[in-house]
């Protein structure tokens, strides 16, 4: 992870590799200045950083908790934690990845306080029938989000961070404290569930491609 990474999105070969997960390109050349000022205690600068990267935090946490769940509360807590800890942020590293790390730990902490996690019946997940008439893109995306909600939490996290937030494997590994190979394995397992659940959608999908 390094500073300014966001600003390279969409600018050349290195970027296409970096952006394989589909990172939303939100670039503001003032970001480095805001980080320095926020660390020095500027509330305005901190608010500007939140405006820029806060939506990622909410999106990730809503993905983890499901819409209408605790996502909003956890996002609020994450931003507050970031406000408290801004002095410890290492200048030159990726601010958004730092925020998402706090979001991840906030979520883990909140999940720990709840009832013990009972294994999700991944194998038993029913296939989602394809709609008739054939699916629109919006239907498919909604179905993807639906299936995502049934994934075990460690798999859901890596899928959201990879495809929702566009983080690299190394970034996800560092953020979740897992090995890069574990991240890859979790992505693979999640994909198998998605493929199985959305099997009936494939013809429509392929039709759209052609």
């Amino acid at each position, binding site marked *: 992870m390094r500073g300014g990474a966001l600003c390279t999105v969409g600018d050349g070969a290195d970027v296409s590799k970096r952006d394989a997960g589909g990172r939303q390109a939100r670039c503001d050349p003032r970001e480095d200045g805001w980080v320095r000022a926020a660390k020095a205690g500027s*509330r305005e600068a901190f608010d500007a950083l939140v*405006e820029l990267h806060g*939506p990622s935090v909410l999106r990730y946490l809503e993905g983890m908790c499901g819409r209408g769940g605790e996502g909003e509360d956890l996002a609020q807590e994450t931003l507050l934690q970031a406000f408290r800890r801004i002095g410890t942020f290492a200048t030159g590293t990726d601010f958004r990845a730092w925020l998402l790390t706090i979001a991840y730990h906030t979520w883990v902490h909140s999940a720990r306080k709840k009832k013990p996690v009972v294994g999700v019946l991944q194998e038993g997940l029913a296939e989602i029938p394809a709609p008739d008439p054939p699916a629109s893109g919006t239907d*498919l*995306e909604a179905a993807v989000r639906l299936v995502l909600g049934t994934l075990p939490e460690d798999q859901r996290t890596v899928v959201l961070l990879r495809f929702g937030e566009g983080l690299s494997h190394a970034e996800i590994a560092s953020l979740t404290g897992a090995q890069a190979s574990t991240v*890859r394995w979790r*992505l693979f397992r999640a994909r198998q569930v998605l493929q199985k659940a959305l099997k009936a959608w494939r013809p429509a999908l392929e039709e759209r491609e052609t």
Partner: protein
Amino acid sequence: MNCEEIQVLLEGGTSPAEEAVVAEHLGQCAACAQYAARLEEENRVLRKALALPPGAERWQRVKARAAAGADLETFSRTRRRRAYWAVAGVAAAVAFSVTIIIVRRDTGVQTPESLAAHVATLQEEVRSSQVLDELDQLQIVFRETGDADGRSVAEDAELYVERLLALDAQRVDQAREVLAGIKAAGIHKRLLRVRDSISEDAPTPLRASLDLAASTLGKAAYLADSKGRHHGR
């Protein structure tokens, strides 16, 4: 490597050596080549489904609530800084009382000149410790927590501190009158009673503010007392 191992590697984050193995396998295995092609399209769908921005209304709500939380944090940070001054104020109070005791031991009485000097010192201390600000904050806290008694004591204390600040230290009679009023009201004792009555888990700055105000007014009462001795002798 078997096909499943290759398909795991296709998820990405691979080393150059692993990439070479994958490339070689794809060249020989039609099923995995097809799988790899499908992966691209699946990833596009996943990105489209998961990278949508969150609803503007929900985001505005989160932002507003987080900002309100940060405002509160800023407020308590200020109060922590104030608590430092409160500690400094208590230390000054101890030094001040020791001075008075020494003066008394030396002279036995409080002369008009020494009283004027002590009042001026106390006024300076009141200004530098910002005890009036602390009392304002206490009133806000007590109002919010519905503590009518605490609020009334803080309001009275503010009134007496303002009187103390307003008096002309050189006009000894006026000073004596104000000091006697503070002593008669027993306001410093009331402040300490409030401090002792508030919950154990109340924020430390709250207690520190009450201590600071009690210490300031306690010193004023002490000076009034020294006046009494002076007259008594």
